[in-house]
């Protein structure tokens, strides 16, 4: 080969390689820069780079929305549904992780020119004072070139000649995708918010349990944040405000809650400058520091609070008093009261214990003279325990009382207790009910739908069964006002040896079952169980006891979709519920009662 031929061969080969790479990156398009021609996977692109992914989505779908809430990742926790209700609009949650106010300004200017925008809510977070204008360096936090004004050549060449690992990973992730969000697709496409279905379904429990699950709060890392970007941040926000005024867009600013231990890392002078400058730009609803900031269970980490906290913030802003909101949570800050507002941040105080309650929930099953297992108890033992509770001044509660405490903030009695029975045995009616009446104590019975009224046989088999009470007994007990009926699933607590097919012994997904089929099955099962209970007793249950105590995040989420607002498991312990966090009513712990526990021991156990 001559040098000339060789050189030509080299460049042709190089061009072919380049073409292959470009085609691969453009077709798979992990960042959604080229319209994601093959996968059409908005949530993935948005996760890779929310600025690019969401712009691509909105360019197509902006007709569905007329209002936006925008800001860094804490913005996600303000529920779009509630905003729609309050504003009578259709909001999109334009959260962009790591967004600074320059991102916000640039996005708003772009939207105002290209979409219909009636209302704009800007979420300002204390971190916005730390940095501004640094996102362009990173593939995952730069704006689309048409918004940032970056040269198209540099912008597209970065994504055209992207490390193919991104595209390879996207192909792998596609195969691994599931119903709930995975780390590679964290956005709910329709609302724009983080898909928190899984996190909103996880049990909360006691502070100690929470610190185990979220150890970051146990010893919060110290940092030395420097608020060097306050002035630029406010300039950008002022530009947004002016634009809104010019275009007749309603404009509101909300300042997000911060975890106290992180807030304390900031210098007071800088904090004061930040919030007073903010008040100069616009009046704003301030949630930065309050008793909420002192309750770790309201937070995922210092800078991300739970959706329920966002809900409470919006309720406070719009004067909605239909549910509990901590009294000191949120205030409207103007130029005139900004100085006081900053002082108030520093005098905020909270005690996690004050907003949470320990509620012992006792578990009984079958009552018999000859207990065979650790879940059965003699009538005498049961009576002694109930008497001890009554004598000890314990007030029995229904599950709705717990919900009232959590959701509405109603007080609980000094010594609350919840008595529960699983399965719905005839002995509950024959042996326990008279004792409950004797002491005027309330209880909740979780019935297995298919077993109600089965006195001799397991379902339609020939196998014998411990007798279960029927609807007549149920109605009688409910009518007494002392008993409520909850669900123990309709037919998801099967006894494997008696089943012909694959048994569903608990509410977990069966091996090989698709997530969609599973969720449909759970919802249908509970729907059947709840409809039967409502038809027969007049009360639709919102509580379920997990068969065998087994559950996972997917099952808890599926149940909440079906309308279950309270669940109990079999994990031993005293339940702890938190005001403002309905999620704390999930997978509550219980205490299993047997004859082994003497009345004195029971009281000691409850007072521990």
């Amino acid at each position: 080969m001559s040098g000339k031929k060789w050189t030509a061969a080299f460049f042709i080969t190089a061009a072919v390689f380049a073409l292959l790479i470009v085609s691969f990156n453009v077709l798979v398009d992990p960042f959604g820069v080229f319209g994601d021609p093959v996968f059409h996977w908005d949530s993935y692109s948005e996760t890779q780079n929310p600025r690019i992914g969401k712009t691509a989505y909105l360019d197509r779908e902006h007709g569905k929305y007329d209002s936006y809430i925008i800001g860094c990742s804490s913005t996600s926790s303000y529920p779009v549904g509630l905003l729609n209700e309050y504003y009578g609009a259709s909001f999109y949650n334009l959260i962009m992780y790591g967004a600074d106010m320059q991102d916000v300004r640039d996005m708003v200017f772009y939207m105002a020119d290209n979409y219909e925008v009636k209302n704009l809510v800007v979420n300002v977070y204390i971190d916005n004072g730390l940095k501004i204008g640094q996102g362009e360096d990173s593939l995952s936090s730069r704006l689309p070139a048409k918004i940032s004004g970056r040269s198209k050549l540099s912008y597209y060449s970065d994504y055209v000649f992207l490390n193919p690992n991104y595209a390879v990973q996207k192909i792998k992730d596609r195969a691994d995708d599931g119903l709930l969000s995975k780390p590679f697709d964290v956005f709910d496409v329709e609302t724009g918010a983080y898909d928190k279905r899984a996190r909103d379904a996880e049990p909360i429990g006691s502070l100690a349990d929470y610190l185990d699950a979220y150890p970051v709060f146990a010893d919060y890392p110290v940092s030395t944040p420097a608020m060097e970007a306050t002035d630029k941040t406010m300039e950008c926000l002022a530009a947004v405000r002016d634009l809104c005024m010019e275009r007749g867009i309603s404009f509101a600013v909300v300042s997000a809650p911060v975890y106290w231990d992180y807030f304390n890392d900031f210098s007071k002078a800088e904090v004061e400058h930040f919030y007073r400058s903010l008040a100069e730009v616009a009046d704003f609803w301030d949630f930065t520091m309050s008793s909420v900031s002192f309750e770790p269970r309201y937070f995922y980490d210092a800078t991300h609070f739970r959706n329920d906290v966002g809900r409470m913030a919006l309720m406070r802003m719009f004067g909605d008093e239909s549910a509990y909101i901590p009294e000191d949570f949120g205030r409207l800050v103007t130029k005139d009261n900004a100085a006081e507002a900053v002082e108030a941040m520093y005098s905020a105080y909270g005690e996690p214990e004050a907003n949470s309650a320990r509620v012992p929930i006792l578990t009984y099953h079958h009552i018999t003279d000859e207990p065979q297992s650790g879940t059965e108890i003699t009538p005498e033992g049961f009576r002694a325990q109930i008497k001890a509770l009554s004598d000890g001044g314990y007030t029995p509660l229904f599950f709705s009382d717990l919900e009232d405490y959590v959701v509405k903030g109603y007080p609980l009695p000094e010594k609350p207790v919840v008595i529960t029975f699983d399965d719905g045995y005839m002995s509950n009616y024959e042996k326990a009910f008279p004792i409950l009446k004797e002491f005027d104590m309330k209880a909740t019975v979780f019935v297995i739908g298919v077993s109600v009224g089965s006195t001799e046989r397991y379902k339609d088999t020939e196998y014998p069964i411990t007798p279960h009470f029927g609807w007549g007994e149920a109605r009688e007990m409910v009518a007494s006002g002392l008993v409520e009926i909850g669900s123990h699933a309709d037919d998801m607590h099967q006894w494997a040896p008696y089943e012909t097919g694959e048994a569903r012994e608990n509410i977990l997904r069966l091996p090989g079952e698709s997530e969609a089929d599973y969720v449909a099955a759970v919802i249908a099962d509970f729907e059947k169980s709840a409809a039967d209970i409502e038809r027969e007793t007049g009360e639709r249950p919102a509580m379920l006891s997990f068969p065998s105590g087994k559950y996972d995040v997917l099952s808890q989420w599926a149940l909440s979709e079906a309308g279950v607002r309270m669940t109990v498991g079999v994990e031993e312990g005293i339940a702890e519920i938190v005001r403002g966090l309905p999620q704390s009513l999930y997978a509550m712990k219980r205490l299993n009662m047997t004859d082994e526990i003497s009345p004195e021991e029971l009281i000691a156990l409850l007072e521990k």
Partner: protein
Amino acid sequence: MSLLSPLFPALVLVSVTVYYLVPKRSRWTVLLAASWLFYLWGGLASAAYILITTVSTYVCGLILGRIREKNDAARVKKLRRPVVFLCCLINFGMLFAVKYWDLAAEMTGLSLPRLGLLAPLGLSFFIFQSTGYVADVARGKIAPERNIAKYSLFVSFFPQITEGPIGRYGALAPQLYGGSDLNFDNIRSGIQLSMWGLIKKLIIAERAGVIVNSVYSNASAYDGSVIAFAVLMYCIQLYCDFSGGIDIARGAAKCFGIDMAENFRRPLYAKSLAEYWRRWHISLGSWLRDYVFYPLTFTKLFNRIGKFTRKHIGGALGRIIPTSLATFIIYFLVGIWHGANYTYIAFGLYNGVVITSGLLLAPFFEKVKARLKIDAKSKWFSAFSMLRTMLIVFAGRYITRAPYLKMSLVMLKRTVFNFHPSALFSGVIADLGMTAADLIIVAAGVVLVNAVELTEERGTDVRLALSKKSGFVQWLCLALPLAAIVAAALFGGDYTASSFIYAQF
């Protein structure tokens, strides 16, 4: 700009195209423009240093030229001295301030202010290159360059400025200014050389280097065998990275028809440490030889030392001591050139001690060889010498990369006393980020590099031999490396390209 930046091939492509399009006598201006674009890409801040060097050496060159024109030899000798001294003071003073001041302040324990200056790209390379030019003018070997723009090209020629080789004006300037004719054989050679460099750098060095950092910084956590493995990987990384960078640079220059000095001549085949240093970073060694070693041995002081040793010690030893002393100083300088750090000073001393003692003990070794009837020219003895040299170099590499001197001693100690070969197979290599695939690629790469070098050591020009193969084979030898480089560049590392190790020197 880094040689690994994707913009570098783009810059070469564009400037080569323009180079051959403009008239021959203006071609050097294309090189100049490309060089300044390359150098200033990273920011204007570093321009001050290269400007000071360019202007000071240019002016000194002119003055020295003038002195030579107007005076006789004796007077030239007298007059040139202050000019050369001033030139060295400015440039080496700058080098010292940037690279060594803080270390010196620390070592002397004086409460001197720390400068904390960041070394600009290629500082020591362009200072060595341009002060070499001044020395050559002073010696009358070359005439000074009168056109400052042309001279500036000599100082800043972009392929070589990041990591050398350190060029000589006499060899480089005619090629830079002359403007070569378009020759596709040059383009082919240039691309091949660059690809070879990229393979060494991107595919071998990057992978070999993965575990180096962790092991060197925390040696006491690892067994001796793991440490030795890491040192071996460091040797591979260092050679492939540095020689790869040089090949990329030489390849780029070759596309303009410019032959740059060789900087490596298969150092693995060196039979002694001294020979190793004649094969490793050749341009630095020869620069030190020509501009430090020879002048040093001709100073009055060395003359006196020589007289003294001949008189009082006598014999071979008496004759050899002054040379050994100069040698020692050179290797000490080599050490500190590589880094302003105790470890590099120790490295310099190590090399100085080994080579000097080799010189001093040479008569003794001769006797031993004669006594044992060893034929120094036999294959076996050559192999033994090569192996011995490798071991000495290997041991030296314990010193340079360690974060501080004591750590290298810890590493040596653990290698000798806690070798535990089984530790190597306990999965620690994978834990440190080097997968089995990485190991295989590094091993295959080392075999490939050695196969090529052995062929060249035996006198065969590999590229010439390749050009005689069939078209398909030639195409394969183009497409496969290209595919490997593209894949390595795109998939490589943590999705970001790392900068050359040598650019920090």
